[in-house]
Every structure is written in structure tokens, then in C-alpha cells.
């Protein structure tokens, strides 16, 4: 199996709502994105610290725009187009020339992998504080503390379905906040 067919299988599953496949897909892609951005930023004379911001921004786009992927097409060009678009957008915002962003073969994005995960300049805790309390608590209990939905419902006094709804809405707001922050 090639990388493309592995990743495409994960994508196909994640489009159907398989969150385990989705996590594996994003994890695999983050390595390729990191390596792509590191080399491109170096080439454009930008600080390497910007790599992780771009990786995360691209992951958010891949997540929120996954409905724009055409399952009849290979996945690699779709990922590459997003990665390159975000790079050009970033360089333009930081007033660097975009003339030296070459157009590679789409497969270039899978050519190398870098799993030395670093931190972006985003402070998740600060973003959390901007969420309404019920959403913040639901996310905190289930996502960060690892409680089950039932346990979180007990502890917060909400019904389990309210916890689920609050997680869902909270995540939506949070991804929007992150997307906005990485643009600022």
C-alpha cells in the first residue's frame, strides 16, 4: 500500500464520521505538513517558530473543510493545495515575498515526515476562558480530564445530552477562535 492509499482510506472513514480514523489521519498529515512548512519557511527566510502555527492552521482547515474533498480523487493534491494556500497566505500576511513558493508535484507533501511536534504560539487555556461556562466545563471534563459523558453530566449537573451538545458547540467555537487567532 502506498502512503496515498493509506491516507485516503483514513479520509474516507473520517468523512463517514470515524473519529479514530480522523485522529490517525490528522496525526499522519501533521508530520508531512511540519516537514513541508519547515523547509518552505527556511527558504523564505522566516523564523522556524512559525512552523507549528502553520501546521495547526492547516490541520484546522483540513478538519473544517473536509467536506470539500472529492472522494473520487486522490487525497494528496487536496492536502497539498491546502498546505500551499495557507503558506502563501501566511507569507503575504507577514509581508514576505511569495514569489519563491514553488509549485511542486502534489506528492511533494508526502515526501518527508517530521514528528518532532512543537508548540504553537497559541495559548489554549486563554482561548478556553473565552467560551461560555457550560461549554468550557463540558469540554474540560470530557476532553481534558478524560471523564465519560455520564460522569461529566453528574459533576456539572447537566443532562448527558446537554453535555454532548455543549461539547459540540464548544468545539465549533473553539476551532473558530483558533482559526482567528492564528490569522492575527
Amino acid at each position: 500500500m502506498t502512503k496515498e492509499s493509506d491516507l485516503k482510506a483514513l479520509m474516507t472513514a473520517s468523512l463517514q464520521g470515524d473519529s479514530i480514523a480522523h485522529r490517525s489521519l490528522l496525526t499522519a498529515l501533521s508530520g508531512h505538513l511540519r516537514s513541508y512548512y519547515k523547509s518552505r519557511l527556511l527558504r523564505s527566510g522566516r523564523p522556524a517558530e512559525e512552523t507549528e502555527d502553520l501546521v495547526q492552521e492547516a490541520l484546522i482547515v483540513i478538519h473544517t473543510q473536509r467536506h470539500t474533498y472529492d472522494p473520487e480523487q486522490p487525497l494528496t493534491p487536496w492536502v497539498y493545495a491546502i498546505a500551499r494556500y495557507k503558506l502563501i497566505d501566511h507569507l503575504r500576511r507577514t509581508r514576505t515575498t511569495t514569489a519563491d513558493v514553488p509549485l511542486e508535484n502534489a506528492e511533494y507533501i508526502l515526501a518527508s515526515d517530521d514528528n518532532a511536534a512543537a508548540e504553537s504560539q497559541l495559548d489554549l487555556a486563554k482561548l478556553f476562558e473565552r467560551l461560555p461556562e457550560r461549554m468550557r466545563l463540558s469540554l474540560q471534563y470530557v476532553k481534558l480530564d478524560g471523564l465519560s459523558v455520564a460522569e461529566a453530566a453528574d459533576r456539572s449537573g447537566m443532562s448527558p445530552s446537554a453535555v454532548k451538545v455543549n461539547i459540540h458547540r464548544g468545539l465549533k467555537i473553539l476551532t473558530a477562535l483558533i482559526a482567528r487567532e492564528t490569522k492575527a
Partner: protein
Amino acid sequence: MKTNELISMLSSQVDPVDTREVVRNVRIAILVGAAASLLAVVFVLGVRTDLNEMHAQVFLVAKLAFSLSVVILASHYLVKYIRPGGEFRVRFALTVLPFLAAMIIAAISLATAPRSHWETMVFGSYWLECLIAIPTVAVVPFAAIMSAVRRAAPTDLVRTGALAGLVAGGVSATAYALHCMDDLLPFIALWYGGTIVLCTVTGAVLGPKLLRW
């Protein structure tokens, strides 16, 4: 924030998504835009009154053949360009075919006519109306299409904008053909073709501004 924290967060709740929705949105927008253009032409400009005559029908069909082939070709490419990387998959050189055909037919009809008729054949009676009406009527379909495209994620904003303008111009020309009384092939090639190209260029210019995400 650590990247694996972000990944956990993003993959904690993964809803199934419909990958065909973006294309459906654009198709609906084209239909809505076409309906709006038709209403504008029928109620503001009025349908030509001689449609029961054979001559008028023949030229109406000729105009529709040109404008509808533009719409069909351009929308075929547009729905590919709205997805990231669509520009790697297809080029849309084929969209020049209707224009090329119109120009060849116009050239033949000019070549076979006496030189003294050329001015009338090119300018007709209402070239100015055509020049203003087609781009104006194209505004609503263009806005509808662009707002649908914005809900997707094109990565080549200039070409996507150009294709949106091309579709909108074609839709508008289709509606305007119901009103237009100038039945001359060179007129159609120049003023229909020219105004649709104008819409395309406008789309290409506005694309990067309106479609950024």
C-alpha cells in the same frame, strides 16, 4: 498549544459530512441566478414581440446555442475549481470553443456580405443596450454563484473567480437573448462574446478579494 492537543480536540467529535454539498450549492446558485436574470429581462426589458416569426426564432436559437454552451462548459469546470487543488486537475481551455466558433461564423458571414453592410452587421441597432444590459443582469447570478463558491475552499482564486464570471455572463446573455432584437451573427459574436468576456475578467479581478478564506 501542542499540535497533538489540537488533533485530539478536532477528532473528538467527527460528524459525517456530505462531500457533494459544495457542488450542489453552486448548481443551485446558478439556477437561482438564472431565474433572477430571466425575471429581470422579462419584466424590465420585455421579451421580443416577434417570436412567432421564423426568422426571430432561428436567431434566438443561435444566441441560446452560444450562451448556453458557455454556461454548460464553464459550470462544468467551475464545480471542479471550487475544491482545493481543483486547478491541478483540469484546465479550462475548452471554454474558448463557443467564442472561437462564434468568431469564425461571424467572420464567414462578414466575408460573404458586401462591405457596405459591415457596420450594421457589427453594431446592429442596440449595441449599447447589449453592452450595458448583459453585465448588469449578470450581477445577481454572479453574486449568487460567488456566495456559493465561498462556502467551498478554492485555492486558485483568480481562475475560480473568472469561471464564476464566465458562468454569470453566460446566464445573463441567455436571458438577454429573449429580449434582443439584433439578429446578426457578427453582432452576437462581438457584443455577446465581448460582454461575457468582460464578466469573466471582472470575476478574475474580484476572485482574490471575494473568495479569500
